[in-house]
């Protein structure tokens, strides 16, 4: 029980570090981030929405992961966002677009697209682990409460 809780805390902390670092660095260098978004093979008309939506949702997920009551929702949101990034990276690697942009827009600018894919998959797996552990915790707490009434 304690081991599971420590694992949940560690997974949350890793995801919070990822999302907070990513969002704060984007806001600290917003002009470059704007350019990097325009450099992606997506329509430039999406940029004004994406430059706020991506870091905004990263901060929202970090906050959700910090609060016990919203943690499960935070893990699901983290899985959703990381899956979107992973699918986008895979699409880039499969040459779906007319060109491969520089991988400079990612969380760690020096990573290649292949390294980005591995990095994203790791955090997708971490989010899945978080969901499983958090759900088990909910079920065991629920069962304990049920048994105490019997």
């Amino acid at each position, binding site marked *: 029980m304690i081991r599971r809780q420590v694992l949940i805390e560690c997974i949350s902390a890793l995801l919070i570090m990822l999302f907070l670092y990513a969002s704060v660095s984007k806001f600290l*260098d917003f002009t470059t981030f704007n350019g990097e978004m*325009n*450099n992606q093979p997506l329509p*430039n008309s999406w940029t004004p929405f994406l430059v706020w939506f991506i870091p905004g949702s990263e901060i929202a997920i970090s906050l959700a992961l910090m609060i016990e009551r919203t943690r499960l929702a935070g893990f699901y949101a983290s899985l959703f966002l990381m899956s979107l990034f992973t699918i986008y990276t895979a699409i880039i690697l499969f040459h779906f677009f007319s060109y491969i942009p*520089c991988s400079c827009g990612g969380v760690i600018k020096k990573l290649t697209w292949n390294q980005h894919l591995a990095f994203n998959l790791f955090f997708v797996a971490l989010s899945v682990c978080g969901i499983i552990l958090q759900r088990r915790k909910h079920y065991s707490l629920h069962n304990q409460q049920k048994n105490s009434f019997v």
Partner: protein
Amino acid sequence: MNKIKQTLMTFAILVSIGSAFAFRPHTSKAFENGLYYYNGSGYVPVTGNMGQGYLCVGNSDVCTYFFNSSTQTYNPYITGNYTPVALTGK
């Protein structure tokens, strides 16, 4: 358990925000003198902005440079191949 939780959360917040500040690129330096690309013989100012005027394609080579006035050198800024596009963007 609460103590472990608080310590971990504080550590995560401090490390992430601290490293975002620590690894922040010095863009002010980059934009002081504008951005340049290397055309084979010299450094030429870029036209427009990234995504509107030019693209940085792939990961080989250096796409844009910034002029560092203190060292009087052109330093790599963004990786990729400099590819001019229409100023209206994609």
